């Protein structure tokens, strides 16, 4: 039932609104609303019960193994949530004076420093509100750089074909054309094709490494040289940073600019769609262009004093990208996480996420599933293809995904990257135990048996969820995006 359908005319959660009402005589009648908006009319307990029960219809990290490749669904420490939800932080107005904001600013400053440390970048701005906005900031800085040098011919961004959709979409939002670079059958960028593609029109290259193919781009140094030699800059999509934390730094690989998805690598909760945070880091050349606001630190009488850095400090900045300073609460959680892990813990993230992925990959392979890149190491994730199952048994990667829900596991990412047919991108993360991984393989083996012996069963899945398989085609064809009372009659 929808919350609207639980309503009764006149019902209210009385304790929640001011009890006195006041006339609005000073507001012109023409600007006053005539008809009340159609909001639910429900009691407080009904609301609590409705949304509590809705929540119970979700899979989540707190309830299920959730090996969604590229999304890094790892444990979100409860302590981080608690830390960010303190009254002093929640009540701080974004424009509050710096003199009553030193606590908050200190956390942000420290986070900037940690992110510089793990990435090998020279400067970090925390303001972008998700990975995609971080990408935007990064590519906008590349553009600002070329423009500052009056290098106006650079109109193209190169992107490997396996890239995440936000990469090309971002390049276009920054006014660039996109040229795709093919990936070879070991998952590496085709370096010859890249060599052919670069030129005076090249503004830069966007790359994810480990790539979306779940492998480490071995030619990264060569790629960097080629692009740099052509006058382009290198953008690092940090969505997969979890895999290499403490092991290799984008700055050392030769990247000029990057974003980090704190809601992945730094374990902030993804909230069923957000919020995230996508800080950008840059090397020397792009420092002048970082988006504001950032946090600076002065010493006053031997004591640290934090303050906002603005256009006055960074006159060439690409400017502000959000109303205030981005997803502050997410940044506080990431600061907490980084503080608990520290340098030893951050190093282990890369190690154990990689260990888990390679273990799972080996077990899955031993169980007879086909790897997309059998000759490669897994990074923190890996790809299998269910192409054979689709062709021979007519049981698709989607069918497998729906069926594994019945076994109590969230499905891996399906059909991404697009270049591997019928694929699953599997990312266990470092916070899952070996027992959990073993259970997952067992479920896969059982589904394989079902696909062989009773394919209808798998094609009809799921059976254990609040709804059976949903009709996506109908959703798009008979568009119903808003509840209206007439629709119910």
């Amino acid at each position: 039932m929808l919350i609207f359908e639980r309503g009764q005319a006149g019902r209210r959660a009385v304790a929640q609104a001011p009890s006195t009402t006041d006339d609005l005589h000073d507001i012109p009648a023409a600007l006053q609303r005539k008809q009340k908006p159609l909001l639910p009319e429900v009691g407080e307990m009904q609301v609590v019960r409705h949304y509590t029960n809705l929540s119970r219809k979700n899979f989540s990290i707190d309830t299920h193994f959730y090996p969604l490749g590229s999304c890094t669904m790892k444990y979100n420490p409860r302590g981080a949530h608690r830390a960010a939800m303190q009254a002093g932080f929640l009540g701080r107005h974004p424009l509050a004076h710096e003199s009553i904001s030193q606590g908050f600013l200190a956390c942000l400053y420290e986070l900037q420093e940690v992110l510089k440390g793990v990435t090998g970048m020279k400067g970090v701005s925390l303001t972008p509100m998700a990975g995609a906005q971080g990408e935007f900031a990064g590519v906008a800085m590349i553009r600002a750089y070329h423009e500052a040098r009056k290098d106006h011919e650079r109109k193209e961004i190169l992107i490997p074909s396996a890239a995440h959709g936000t990469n090309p979409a971002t390049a276009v939002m920054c006014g660039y054309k996109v040229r795709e670079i093919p990936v070879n059958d070991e998952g590496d960028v085709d370096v010859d094709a890249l060599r052919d593609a670069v030129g005076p029109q090249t503004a830069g290259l966007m790359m994810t490494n480990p790539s979306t193919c779940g492998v480490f781009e071995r030619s990264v140094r060569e790629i960097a040289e080629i692009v740099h030699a052509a006058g382009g800059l290198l953008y690092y999509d940090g969505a997969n940073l979890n895999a290499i934390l403490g092991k290799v730094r984008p700055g050392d690989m030769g990247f000029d600019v990057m974003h980090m998805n704190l809601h992945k690598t730094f374990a902030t909760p993804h909230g069923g769609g957000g919020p995230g945070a996508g800080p950008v880091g840059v090397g020397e050349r792009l420092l002048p262009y970082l988006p504001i606001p950032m946090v600076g630190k002065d010493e006053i009488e031997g004591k640290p004093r934090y303050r906002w850095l603005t256009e006055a400090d960074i006159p060439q900045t690409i400017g502000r990208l959000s109303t205030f300073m981005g997803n502050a609460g997410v940044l506080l959680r990431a600061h907490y996480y980084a503080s608990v892990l520290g340098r030893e813990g951050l190093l282990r993230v890369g190690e154990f996420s990689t260990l888990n992925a390679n273990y799972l990959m080996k077990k899955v392979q031993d169980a007879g599933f086909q790897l997309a890149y059998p000759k490669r190491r897994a990074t923190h994730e890996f790809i299998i293809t269910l192409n054979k199952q689709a062709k021979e048994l007519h049981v698709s990667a989607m069918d497998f995904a729906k069926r594994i829900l019945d076994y109590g596991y969230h499905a891996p990412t399906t059909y991404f990257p697009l270049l591997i047919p019928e694929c699953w991108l599997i990312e266990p993360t470092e916070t899952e135990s070996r027992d959990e991984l073993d259970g997952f393989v067992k479920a896969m083996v059982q589904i394989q048996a079902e696909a062989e012996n009773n394919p209808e069963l798998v094609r009809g899945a799921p059976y254990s969820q609040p709804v059976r398989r949903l009709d996506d085609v109908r959703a798009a064809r008979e568009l119903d995006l808003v509840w209206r009372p007439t629709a119910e009659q």
Partner: protein
Amino acid sequence: MPYVPHTDEDVRIMLDTIGVASIDALFDEIPAEIRAKPLLEIPSGRTEMDVTRLVGERAAADGNVINFLGAGAYEHHIPAAVWDIISRGEFMTAYTPYQAEASQGTLQVIYEFQSLMAHLTAMDVSNASLYDGGSALAEAALMAVRANRKSQSGRVLVLENVNPFYCDAARNIVGNQHIEIVKVPFDATTGNVDQAALDAYAGQDFAALVVAMPSFFGTLEDVHALTDWAHANRMLMVAVVNPTALAVLTPPGEWGQKGADIVVGEGQPLGVPLSSGGPYVGFICCRNEIVRQLPGRIIGRTVDLEGKRGFTLTLQAREQHIRRSKATSNICTNQGLAMAAATIYLSLLGAEGLARVAQACHANTRKLIASLSEIPGVSVAHQSAFFHEAVLRLPKNAAEVVAALAEQRIAGGLALGEFFPDHENALLVCATEMRNDADIARYQAALRQILA
């Protein structure tokens, strides 16, 4: 190590299974010369207890401030139920609902959010959220340029009394696509648009006109006339609104003859804490005709195999993961949790409750400006109807006053000098339903002393 459950025994078995001697061997594809050195700049890890104490002291240092600041972020009462429910692991630690059947909770919440926002704005449809108000304005400008078939231009007219932070963010985001934001000045005595300046643009090719209600100054434009003006000049009408205000003010869908075409705003007032500026939740609504130009995620209602109602991601062909370089936006992760908070908040408040909140805010702001205006030299800046926020003229530099008030742990408002020339003495103030008479008296006393 924190949050990693592996025992030594686990590691041994796993390495044996993989067939390598050490974890380090798993990184052998990474060229040796770029392998990282120990991260010595980063401090050692600490326990939950230690970090909690550290950040607890920091939160306390920033706390206990009494707020008369609005300017786009408002301190409203948030029912305890809202964040108790949001904080449930099932909502908080889920990803984007890619597997619809295992995410009906999140999906239904979004469908409800879309419905609530559509009803509140009196528009046809809403998306599942954008980042915040400022970036939502950017998306609205881009959308308007795509959607306005009658315009060839990449130019958008924006009244100068629209939140300057929104305008900045929008300009920085859309600028790279050669979209130009053209500001229409306001009249200093009313705080509203300078009609003559606007009329100068009549007949020119602009994709849209952007109008805020209330304006950044709290003043109320004649949105009906402006909407009709935009449509008469073949522009789309983009409304920037405060959702709390819509409980009592005419919704954009009913502005002028035909209503606004696109509506954006900041959903923070709906159950989202001030929290230093985020996570907030941008919203965007539009007319049915242009839904395929809407950026971001959209949830649709459908049925399952057995005909049972369910919800799923829809119109994905607009989005980056399908359409890539031709997507309506690059947005992927949005503001799901704050969106859910807004949904629960609106359900708890209802139309009547939200109207009471709006009325109480307005009444408190009236009390506040009346109280502060008693102080010699302090006066109200604009001779216009306003809602919930207003500009005061002080006998002194407002930024200095704000700094002095902060010493007394009063967030006294926003000094406007930074944004508008000749406004060094102007202070934007706001009192929500959270402020009581004692708070206002305390502000008055502090200000009196500072100005004395």
